[in-house]
């Protein structure tokens, strides 16, 4: 027979899933919890806490490119403990007799070429290609956001920690915590792109992508939103203070217009109205 203190110690290790339900080492403690209301309440609270932590841990996403890197057989680039043979270690790196070595060398050359190509393409990227990629990311239901969080300060801090764009000049309707649902960091041609996801009361689901303007050869005009449709999704894009903003709507283009004219009574948005509204943008920075 176990006492309450012992039962607590055991029950602390009992998970809220079915994983431990049939484990005999928990049977006596579980039985005691059923007959002891105080212990039962304590256990229920433990289970609730464990379920919250479990869900939070299991929501952590793996990087988008990790699986591809594993399948490509890439060795970790930042290995810290490589055990080198005592002698002639360099002979193991490349063997002229081994076809695998030649294939590896060719792959390295291709990779270097790709990296050089990417680097040379920065500043020459077409905005249309970028938009198409970001629209694809916007419609991706799985791993839509890296972090689900409605606190703008925390989201901005998280983006900063991940070396992504986090100094935004946002339209009034997208500023603050209202409707913010989470964020994500995407990699596009080696550049970090920040995505903010919103569920707005009047305009539905929208995603805002922020990138460095230097990436593009044909960035959209400053403070003059360009409305378009890409892949069946309405978009609005503009540049401001060294950054390019791409707003992707999940319902109608009218919703995007509403977001960009949210501070005016004007019914019909014009470039001038929107430009004047963008002048009222709110600056948010990590600090």
């Amino acid at each position: 027979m176990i006492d309450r203190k012992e039962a607590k110690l055991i029950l602390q290790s009992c998970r809220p899933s079915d994983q431990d339900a049939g484990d005999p080492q928990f049977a006596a403690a579980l039985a005691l919890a059923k007959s002891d209301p105080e212990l039962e309440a304590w256990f229920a609270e433990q289970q609730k806490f464990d379920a919250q932590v479990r869900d939070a841990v299991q929501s952590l996403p793996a990087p988008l490119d990790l699986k591809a890197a594993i399948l490509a057989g890439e060795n970790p680039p930042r290995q810290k403990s490589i055990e080198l043979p005592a002698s002639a270690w360099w002979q193991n790196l490349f063997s002229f007799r081994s076809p695998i070595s030649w294939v590896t060398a060719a792959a390295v050359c291709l990779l270097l070429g790709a990296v050089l190509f990417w680097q040379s393409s920065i500043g020459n990227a077409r905005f249309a290609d970028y938009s198409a990629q970001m629209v694809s990311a916007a419609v991706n239901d799985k791993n839509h956001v890296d972090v689900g969080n409605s606190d703008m300060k925390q989201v901005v801090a998280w983006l900063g920690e991940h070396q992504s764009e986090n100094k935004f000049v946002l339209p009034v309707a997208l500023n603050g915590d209202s409707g913010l649902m989470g964020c994500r960091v995407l990699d596009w041609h080696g550049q970090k792109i920040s995505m903010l996801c919103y569920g707005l009361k009047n305009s539905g689901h929208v995603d805002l992508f922020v990138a460095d303007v230097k990436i593009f050869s044909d960035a959209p005009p400053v403070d003059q939103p360009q409305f378009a449709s890409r892949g069946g999704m309405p978009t609005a894009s503009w540049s401001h203070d060294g950054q390019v903003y791409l707003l992707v709507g999940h319902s109608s283009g009218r919703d995007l217009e509403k977001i960009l004219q949210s501070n005016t009574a004007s019914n019909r948005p014009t470039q001038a109205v929107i430009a004047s509204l963008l002048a009222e943008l709110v600056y948010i920075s990590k600090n």
Partner: protein
Amino acid sequence: MDETLFENVVNSHYEPLYRFALSLARNEPDAGDLVQQTFCRWATHGGQLRDKSKVKSWLFTTLHREFLGQRRHEEKFQKVEISTEDGEELAAESVLPERQLDGVGVLSALRRLDETYRAPLALFYLDEHSYRDIAEILEVPIGTVMSRISRGKELLRKLILEKQA
């Protein structure tokens, strides 16, 4: 190793492995490296595993060993332990966090815990393994796993509540 088999193993396990690595390593790139290194080992040594039902445990054990191996080479990083006194009674009344927990917040609290508690707690919350498997992965007795989880949970709860206060 057969490519399809390898891809199936990667598909099935890379995400929970990454989450485990994330709780052990200091940052995302280190966690990604650990996972890649683990699958590199699987590609070269996985064929020797006779009992295919043990693939998951093999991968987690290997990742944990990789982590410990790397740690041994990093003596310059001083270990900081947050611990409670031995024999301290568990809180009679538990307090739940007021706000819904998010992955990043929990991860940052987990990383503040000593390694002794971090690994068993991460495996506990990943919910992928039985206690027997966790004990095998960490190469310690089941009783030790349970006591570390019990104490680790209390420390984790304190850190989370402190952060939310």
